């Protein structure tokens, strides 16, 4: 599997994503500067976390207009897998590659902690390494993770089995208490129509090494490796 990690000014989880990819797949990704107009031939594109352009406008809004994003969009349309983590998820929604928007957290504060996620579907190259219904532990670290979309959009996401992860309690119930940021229907991650683009607020790359306190992020990278060779 060949992977690329996009680097915007202000990206700060680009190295973390690269480290996790190299650790799990044995192959270091290519780092691609946002001003490039073209991408190398890759099987997976990671849009990493951070504060692209400081997130001084809406989170991800500036980066969505970076030169590289046209290439990312074109590749996604051809079926290349795109994983947007945290700020990357925000960029993908701002670029129109995923529906909805990430608003300021309900309590208006930055939140950094492990959360529990229910894997809603194993039907994607990102989530095939988990069982549907499985509860996993992955950290969040964001100020703007409050997922919002119109009810019709949410209904459609659910009908099409495109909700990848929901915030949940230890039993897998998507309760209000388990929702760290006020996201609609506890949504933590969603898939595109063709299921080749995943945007998620939690950081799977942060728990892909036992030394760091957990490995629940590993199955995602393993599943991608398995699917993409």
């Amino acid at each position: 599997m060949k992977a690329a990690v996009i680097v915007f000014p202000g990206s700060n989880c680009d190295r973390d994503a690269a480290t996790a990819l190299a650790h799990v797949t044995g192959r270091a990704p290519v780092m691609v500067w946002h001003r490039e107009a073209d991408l190398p031939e890759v099987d997976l594109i990671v849009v990493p976390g951070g504060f692209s352009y400081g997130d001084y406008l809406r989170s991800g809004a500036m980066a969505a207009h970076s030169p590289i994003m046209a290439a990312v969009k074109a590749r996604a349309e051809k079926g290349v897998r795109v994983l947007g983590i945290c700020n990357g998820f925000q960029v993908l929604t701002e670029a129109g590659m995923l529906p909805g928007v990430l608003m300021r957290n309900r309590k208006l504060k930055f939140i950094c902690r492990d959360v529990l996620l229910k894997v809603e579907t194993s039907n994607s190259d990102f989530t095939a390494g988990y069982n549907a219904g499985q509860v996993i532990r992955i950290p969040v670290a964001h100020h703007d993770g409050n997922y919002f979309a119109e009810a019709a959009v949410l209904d459609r996401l659910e009908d099409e089995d495109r909700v990848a992860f929901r915030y949940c309690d230890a039993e897998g119930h998507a309760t209000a208490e388990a929702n760290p940021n006020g996201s609609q229907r506890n949504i933590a991650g969603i898939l595109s129509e063709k299921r080749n683009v995943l945007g998620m607020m939690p950081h799977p790359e942060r728990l892909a090494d036992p030394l760091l306190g957990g490995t629940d992020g590993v199955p995602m990278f393993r599943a991608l490796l398995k699917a993409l060779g």
Partner: protein
Amino acid sequence: MNNSVAVTPEIVAEHGLSPSEYQRVLEIMGRTPNITELGIFSVMWSEHCSYKSSKKWLKTLPTKAPWVICGPGENAGVVDLGDGQAAIFKMESHNHPSFIEPYQGAATGVGGILRDVFTMGARPVANLNALRFGAADHPKTRHLVAGVVAGVGGYGNCVGVPTVGGEVQFHPSYNGNILVNAMTIGLADTDKIFYSEASGVGNPVVYVGSKTGRDGIHGATMASAEFSEDSEEKRPTVQVGDPFTEKLLIEACLELMATDAIVAIQDMGAAGLTSSSFEMASKGGLGVELDLDKVPVRETGMTAYEIMLSESQERMLMVLQPGKEGVAKAVFDKWELDFAVIGVLTDTGRMVLKKDGAVVADLPIDPLAQAAPEYDRPWVPGTKQPLLAANDVPAKAWPEALKALVGGPDGCSRRWVWEQYDHMVMGDTVQRPGGDAAVIRIHGSKKGLAATSDVNPRYVAADAVEGGKQAVAEAWRNLTAVGATPLAITDNMNFGNPERPEIMGQFVEACQGMSEACIALDFPVVSGNVSLYNETNGQGILPTPTIGGVGLLPEVEKSVGIAFTAPGEALVLIGGPGTHLGQSLYLYALFGRSEGAPPPVDLAAERRNGDFVRGLIRDGRVSACHDLSDGGLLVAAAEMAMASGIGAALAVEGADLHARLFGEDQGRYLLAVADAAAVLAAAEAAGVPAQRLGETGGDALAVNGEAVALADLKAAHEAWFPAYMA
């Protein structure tokens, strides 16, 4: 202010120069300085930049060890980690600005200390911060806590450096003068460390980073004066931070540092362009000529005075190798940062500033630096409080006492604070906040760094010698408790008005105690910062020499945390039984009394016990470890149990049970071990007091058969902060 402004005695006084200091200015200049020159003298001789009250005593601190590459005097201290790597670190205060404008004050405090570290060629890898606020029930406190925590997080999170540890404390002495002490640790290759000493006459002087605006003019002077009712009016002197630009600046500087283009580099911190250019030239014994028309400015019509004294953030000054301007400019263009050649090094020994084609300032560098005032301020020793016997302290039923301590403002969980900090970014955080010391992996290696920040200001107030000693010993102990070898400290000396002999006495005595501990523990000072005049309306803060400690773990996977890892393990107390309740948290939090002498520190025992514990951890014989500090044995046991969800049963004998459980005697640790007999035998062989106190297991904390449910303790522990801030 432009140079047509006349320099009157009032103007001199407004610049914080005493009449005798101004006399010295006149002697050096041989004429009346213009306003720009006066401004430069003012900031260079401010307490903040010149350390004029503290220098005499700072010189007495031990600063050397075989592993120290660079001690105090540079932007930050440098210690050798082996394998061609070094840790570069420093702690610095941003107290006054944070009280006036908590979000920006704290944010720019973080930004400033980050620059001190990456200026030297290090990639910042961890931030810590020690925060001290007024009494929880003081009307301003909540607002300040909210703003400072948001500011620390807002800056560090965006820059992408994990905030892994620190302290939060409440005390009425900080009601009008909070403390925000920020620490950054960076990693560099030992052959790629950058210093500020300029060299090479004719070499270009280059400005990079943000544009210069009118913000922060006279910040250094503000930091060198007491507060009063009108401090709110100083809001315009607080700088505004831009962490996004800082992130770009880090990446751009590190990218350029990988080439051989840079001769010297210095961040523009306090006193901005003045102190950076002045210090670089001064250290190199050279002169410097700057064309202020070339300085990138944010607004039009800025005078030389404003440009030189602005404290706009996210700016750096560099001296480049000749001919490397193009290489450097390309890097800064890539990161979309300003880049301007603004001057040149000269052999005149003078700082010459030009604007609009005319010389607007011309002053001699060496005489100004040499003549910087240094005071031997009068001081008196503090009145030492007598020892307080345990039976002079009322005993309270331990379950109530424990719940009050772990559920009160001083002992409750700080989760509300550190969950607002990204403490995992960079993917190397092995031990997250909440333990004795944070642990991060040295990226790409098996090694680790441990970091902590410590001081008990009530101890220092009661006896500054013992309190200073204890602060250093506790930092050493916290590093030891995770299995690290303590390497060195950075000290952030926060005190009141040094012109008062009793305050100066606190400073002198704290230095004395710190020195003793540094020597006995091989734990030198490699960097630091002094913040004086922490007073409001004549009311001084508790003396607060915050100690930031850094340690090395040869094998990071062998570090241990405070959380129990299994039921059925033995609890072993290292060190003697608790006896000392003077200045304890028990006495202060439950009875509102700050009485007695602080617990004495036996440095030989400290070292012996700590070396023993570290050895056990490295041998893999310890599964959890916690040093005993505020609240003594029982608070430590409760924290270990709450962190894990595994209970414990202790049998504690002896008279004065409250002192046994809550006494703050020094040099002690509580360990969870699988093989207690072997550990006790090893302790005996090493001459270390050790005692088996009980066992882990269950869902309660029990002492001599009486139990408190862990769930109740945890609920109390986690409830206070969110409820207070709600």
